């Protein structure tokens, strides 16, 4: 169903590409008895930003949450298939939930910093939560590096002790990106990270995504077609027919999906005829 051209990698060959290879194989998902995803397979390469697009309720967020085992935190949620992180099934018997989530970070739709923690503590929260011991100086370096990578350092460097909840929405979201980066994930999932933000904050986050592209494999869910076209090199179009579980209609290089879609439904969607 899904054939992924090895795209955009010619371009990335010039860079030092880090990040992990993520491979979803025949992933199905249920909430209780309701099947919401049907046999989704998608290969996500390092150095490539993958955008998941599609109308609401097509299962793209569910798919995203399966990639770091957040799906199973919902009561009644089940799944089938495999998700291979650099070849190892994250649902396999040898994989620990906590290790998976450490390696596959996530940024949510609604900015969710810990509101009573300071900005610096927010960034370092992942270290504390995962029991990573660092001394004060290393911690300060991590805080600065991650805030810089998330494009927030210059705005907050003089008030690292302020509460994370006191920042603006766009700043909070970049703080969340910095927090996710602090545990050094090899994959970063973003679930509509800009949908609650104004245009200039959105642009800022898109720049951040572009800067992080070679450091960490990024998979982003977005409702915004222009955003998908701007930030991603690979794109997967999800669709759920009436009453049916969702699945991938078409995936491939972003330029091709937008410029020359093979499926009529993809063409209708990317040209704004529905959804």
């Amino acid at each position: 169903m899904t054939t992924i051209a090895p795209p955009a990698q010619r371009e990335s060959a010039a860079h030092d590409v880090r990040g992990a290879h993520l491979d979803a194989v025949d992933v199905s998902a249920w909430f209780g008895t309701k099947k919401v995803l049907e046999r989704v397979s998608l290969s996500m390469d390092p150095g490539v930003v993958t955008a998941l697009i599609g109308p609401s309720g097509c299962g793209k967020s569910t798919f995203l949450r399966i990639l770091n085992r957040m799906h199973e935190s919902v009561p009644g949620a089940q799944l089938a298939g495999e998700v291979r992180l650099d070849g190892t099934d994250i649902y396999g018997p040898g994989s620990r939930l906590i290790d998976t989530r450490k390696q596959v970070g996530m940024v949510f739709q609604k900015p969710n910093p810990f509101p009573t923690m300071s900005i610096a503590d927010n960034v370092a929260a992942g270290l504390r939560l995962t029991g990573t011991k660092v001394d004060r100086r290393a911690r300060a370096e991590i805080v600065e590096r991650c805030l810089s990578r998330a494009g927030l350092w210059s705005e907050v460097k003089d008030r690292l002790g302020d509460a994370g909840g006191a920042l603006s929405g766009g700043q909070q979201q970049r703080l969340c990106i910095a927090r996710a980066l602090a545990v050094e994930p090899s994959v970063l999932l973003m679930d509509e990270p800009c949908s609650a933000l104004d245009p200039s904050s959105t642009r800022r986050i898109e720049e951040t995504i572009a800067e992080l592209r070679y450091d960490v494999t990024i998979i982003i869910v977005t409702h915004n077609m222009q955003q998908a076209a701007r930030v991603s090199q690979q794109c997967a179009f999800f669709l759920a027919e009436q009453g049916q579980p969702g699945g991938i209609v078409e995936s491939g290089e972003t330029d091709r999906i937008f410029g020359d879609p093979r499926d009529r439904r993809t063409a209708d969607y990317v040209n704004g005829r529905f959804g």
Partner: protein
Amino acid sequence: MSISLHTADVPRSLRPVHTRGDRIFRLGARGVGAFVLVLVGAIGLFLGAQLVPTLHRYGLHFFTENRWIPNRDIVGVSAAILGTVEVAVMALLIAFPLALATALYISEYAPPRLRNFLTLLVDLMAAVPSIVYGVWGYFQLQPYAKLISRWLAEYVGWFPLFQVPGGQPHSASWPKSNFVQSPFIASLVVSMMVVPLACAVMRNVFAQAPLHEREAAMALGATRWGVIRSVVLPFGRAGIVGGTMLGLGRALGETIAVLLILSTSYDLSIHPLHVNGVTLSSFIANGFNEATSGQLSALLAAGFVLFCMTLVVNTLAAMIVNRSRSGATTEI
């Protein structure tokens, strides 16, 4: 050209139109609310009024005298105030970790089906009459609790609070009667009544900890304990304090269980493990039958002291809970 009719640039009165049903309901609700206020106020006034004849008769000695000897007309509440605080604080020290752990288990660890059952069980604890707790404490708990008292006296007895005068905990034939009917055992029983109250408040607050913050912690690779530490406890801090203080209010006023267990004496001493003691409520209940009219005023004045203590504690608790983070700061 049209002429503006509203030439005066002053705020218009915006008067909402109420239907008759609205007005009747509003009046009724207001009346009930006012009735509660009046009732509490009247109780306070009635008790407070007793202070006047009491202070007139006994002077400020009423607060400093510890003894209660009706036939010599020696009346004072200092021992009772001390004992009340002693029992309440100990009950809280025992109840707090129990309530916190129970609330955390129910809201964070228990599987959903067990969660409802456990909630019901804990709520049931609140429904057990205090006389039943008293009897249970006296006959079931005391035989074991006195062993704890002895152990404490034996190993930490060097600390004044754990001393039992004449207890000889080291000797093989330790005088058991010195270790029973003590404030410690009374507070054990009272703590069982405090736990469900404090637990219910804590559980409610923990359950409100925002999902998106929990998910933030989980996505960073936090364990359940990590989520609790970074999200649930900071969010629920006010509920923990408030629930505990609400429990304290309950512990201060508990009467019948304390009366059953504590053998009354009016000594001004702090030996919680040692037999004997008195609290304000047990003081009142004890003295009620043998009091002359002047002494009755004194007992009611003692009630006023208790009333004020619980009022302050409960008001503080309500203030702390109300000032807690209602989620306003988490919104963007």
